[in-house]
């Protein structure tokens, strides 16, 4: 029969024996009270402003995307006008050459024209 069912005396490890334990408990209590108090007071002005940062950034990103899209559309419509004139000119020249030679433009000729248009 052993005494393994009896507690071991661990009292030298009792933190309350040390003076600094009381100081630690009090410091923890103060920090904790501040943390719990902050829950009642709610967020401060800085926290509120930092909370706005995300929606403001999101709105700015959406605005940027809309403006960017609009600008790209405007740019495309402006830059595509001369391209369309050039295409029309090429189509006219092809038709004229076909009439002069008395033949219908071949599929390859039309494909080449369309490829150039796409470029």
């Amino acid at each position: 029969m052993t005494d393994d069912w009896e507690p071991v005396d661990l009292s030298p490890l009792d933190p309350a024996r040390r003076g600094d334990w009381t100081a630690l408990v009090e410091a923890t209590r103060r920090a904790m009270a501040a943390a719990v108090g902050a829950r009642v007071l709610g967020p401060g002005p800085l926290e509120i402003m930092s909370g706005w940062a995300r929606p403001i950034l999101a709105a700015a990103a959406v605005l940027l995307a809309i403006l960017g899209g609009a600008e790209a559309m405007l740019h495309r419509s402006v830059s595509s006008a001369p391209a369309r004139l050039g295409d029309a000119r090429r189509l006219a020249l092809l038709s004229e050459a076909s009439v002069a030679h008395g033949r219908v433009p071949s599929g390859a000729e039309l494909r080449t024209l369309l490829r150039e248009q796409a470029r």
Partner: protein
Amino acid sequence: MEDTDAALVARVRAGDSRAADRLLERYLRACRAVALAVTGDEADADDACQEGFLAAIEQIDTCRNPARFGGWLLQIVRNRARNLVRRQAVRAAEPLELHQVAGGASAAAEVERDELRERLLAALAALSQVQREVVLLHDLEGWTHEEIAGHLGLAAGTVRSHLHHARRHLRRILNEDLA
């Protein structure tokens, strides 16, 4: 009437600092025992216990089961203590072992107490971490088998077994030390 953990957690969430005080009275020493079981160093255990407790109060909204606040809190403290040990291991690049920070006490009684603490910490170092937690919570903090089982997520029989083995090892090591 005894406040339940769940009731205290709800009150802390509503901003009641007295409820937080009750949780501190109920658990801070247990946090320290668990931290000591991990770090093996009293000063580090104090740091990890304080940091862990405050972190738990700050993030109390994330405690999914307030009725099991104790186990959740002890896990936070355990993680803090492990991180502390890991950081120190990297910094010091020396093997992890339980040790006692040397004190500057000059009085004979103080020196004797320091030696006793050192021997106990060295004896505890020979146990597994769960055995250390169990024996510290039971024999130092006075928790029951059932309380330890509930908070550590173990069966009560397992707690009894860990405690039995921990005490046997501690006594053997301490007796060898004295011989």
